[in-house]
């Protein structure tokens, strides 16, 4: 029989795999770099958090180490997504099917090459 911690671990494992798959699906389906960053950086990030949680419950990884790793992951992934998005905007990559762009007024020198 499974113990309670094993059941929680398996649940986390399944959720982590599902969110990682959703992230890759988003990478393939979404139209441009900004939208893809939402899928890869964050949905997959949540997947990685769940996989780490599963590792805490199922492997000898200690809970303290796992929690610190989760914290560091949550701290750094948004910085990476922001850096890539900012760089993409500054070299003028257009937003596909964009409906509003309030940053254009602020940075008028950057021209999107359609």
């Amino acid at each position: 029989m499974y113990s309670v911690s094993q059941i929680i671990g398996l649940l986390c494992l399944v959720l982590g795999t599902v969110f990682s798959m959703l992230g890759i699906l988003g990478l393939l389906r979404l139209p441009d770099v900004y939208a893809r960053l939402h899928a890869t950086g964050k949905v997959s990030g949540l997947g990685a958090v769940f996989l780490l949680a599963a590792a805490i419950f199922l492997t000898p990884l200690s809970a303290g180490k796992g929690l610190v790793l989760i914290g560091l992951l949550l701290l750094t992934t948004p910085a990476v997504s922001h850096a890539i998005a900012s760089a993409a905007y500054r070299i003028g990559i257009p937003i596909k099917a964009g409906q509003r762009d309030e940053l254009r007024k602020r940075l008028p020198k950057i021209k999107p090459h359609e």
Partner: protein
Amino acid sequence: MGPRNSAIQMTILLAIVYLLMTANFEPINLAFSLIIGLGISSLVRPQHLSIQWRRLPIALAAIAGYLIYMLVDMWKSSLQVGRILLDPRLPIKPGIINIHSGSESEMAIALSAHAISLTPGELVVEMDDQGEMYAHCLDISQAEELIAEAQKVRRSFLNQIFE
């Protein structure tokens, strides 16, 4: 509070983090954690680190509440983005909207930008020195109200942490 005092505080904090990381409370590891903490804090030389130890439990509780709130927020918006991704029509309305952070301190602006970027569906692309943030959203139709509401909750946590 002199620089030596804050260096000692930083050493202790770093030692605690190291002990949590290694999860090994044997005397030799305790000594090693203090050596590492001392080494780092002598390299960094903290000047303005002032920890009010009496407020630490409240601040730690607020940090824990903030983390749980962020994880719940992340979970909900990940499900929302997942639903969009699985929809055959891919119903996205991307765009960049202007968000006013509404706070002055750099730390609070950085943390709210971090929180906005952490939730799927919102991503801070650019920010300026007046605290205006420009966020790319997957669905701009109701993003503004949602972000404003979440900002309010987050700010109450942050005020508790940095009193």
